[in-house]
């Protein structure tokens, strides 16, 4: 059987990737963010999984508004890094894992999560920045094959937090039922509090973010109970993307061990968070 060995939650702000790509990680405006990643990166370098699953959303690069799948999963052998309009990031293309991905689709559809299947997909910063947070210097290839799991967080109605958590629980069961012997890391991306448009642009809510950071470890069900309205009120219009952390958390056991977490404001217009959990009671 396959086994989830860790879960990593991280913001996916494009400027985090840009700061790395342009050698600005020691810049005074960025240094504390990257220093905050170091303990997680060191631990992850010692715990390389056979496959990773990145729960993320696209930002007008791999898909447009012709189709708005609520949930999607990539079954391709390879995912090209998208050119978002300013040249593609200088990071490797992504090798997929079609065998596990097809198993996940079948298991999840059997559990009545009717995912859209992507056989071709360009991945954008929502996907590559979390990989860079994990592995700052990938060289020619990322540490392992990666499967994209897409969530619509851009167009209302987004899936509910409860549905995302339930999807994560089903994802965990699907991984554990895979006949092959694999270790898996799951990344939940996005957040934390932020709002990009409107007179409330620039909104940050450190109290809510602290509550979220604590509960994602010990009481994720309380976060899954939050309504879309409450999430947008508390975390900002774009902060609702925190629901993708719940997919990751659901795939882990009830008991997890926190390896590291950190919080930084601002990454561009966003509160950036990172939280790394070893799966199981340790």
């Amino acid at each position: 059987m396959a086994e989830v060995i860790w879960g990593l939650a991280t913001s996916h702000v494009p400027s985090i990737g840009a700061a790395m790509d342009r050698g600005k990680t020691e810049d005074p405006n960025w240094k504390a963010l990257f220093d905050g990643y170091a303990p997680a990166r060191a631990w992850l370098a010692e715990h390389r999984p056979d496959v990773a699953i990145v729960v993320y959303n696209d930002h007008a690069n791999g898909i447009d508004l012709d189709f708005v799948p609520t949930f999607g999963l990539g079954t391709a052998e390879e995912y090209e890094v998208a050119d978002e309009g300013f040249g593609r990031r200088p990071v490797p293309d992504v090798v997929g894992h079609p065998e596990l991905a097809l198993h996940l689709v079948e298991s999840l559809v059997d559990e009545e999560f009717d995912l859209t299947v992507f056989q071709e997909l360009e991945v954008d910063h929502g996907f590559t920045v979390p990989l860079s947070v994990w592995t700052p210097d990938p060289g020619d290839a990322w540490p392992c094959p990666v499967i994209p799991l897409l969530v619509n967080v851009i167009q209302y109605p987004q899936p509910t937090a409860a549905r995302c958590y339930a999807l994560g629980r089903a994802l965990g069961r699907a991984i554990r039922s895979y006949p092959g012997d694999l270790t898996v890391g799951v990344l939940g991306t996005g957040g934390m509090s932020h709002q990009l448009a409107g007179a409330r642009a620039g909104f940050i809510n450190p109290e809510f973010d602290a509550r979220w950071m604590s509960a994602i470890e010990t009481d994720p069900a309380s976060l899954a109970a939050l309504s879309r309205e409450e999430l947008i009120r508390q975390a900002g219009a774009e902060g609702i993307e925190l629901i993708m952390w719940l997919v990751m958390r659901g795939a882990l056991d009830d008991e997890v061990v926190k390896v590291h977490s950190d919080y930084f404001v601002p990454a561009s217009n966003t509160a950036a968070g990172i939280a790394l959990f070893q799966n199981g009671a340790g």
Partner: protein
Amino acid sequence: MSETAPDRFGLSGTPIFDGETSRRGLRMNKLFMSLRTAENRERFLADEAGYCQGFGLSPEQQQAVLARDWQAMIDLGGSIFYVYKLAMMDGRSMQYLGGVFTGMGEDDFLAAMRAGGRRDG
């Protein structure tokens, strides 16, 4: 009938990109998406009005794009992630847009973010 987005949830200053907004903004958002490629950016810059007409924008949307009226683009159905493609082409940052949407200007907006972000109330 106004093309302004409904005030879903009654959250002041918080545009919600919902299905109705997306329906109104679809042609304009498709134009923004097309600006990912250098070839399309060149075509757009050579004839912005013609490019807008080719994508079927409404006259109000075309006017907003030509005038770089960022707030109007949001009001007329633009998604911030799509509108940002045009801003990037112009060399504008998300902090610049934040300065526009809040009326603070880019410098004050950036300073507010570096001071920990803006709060309600």
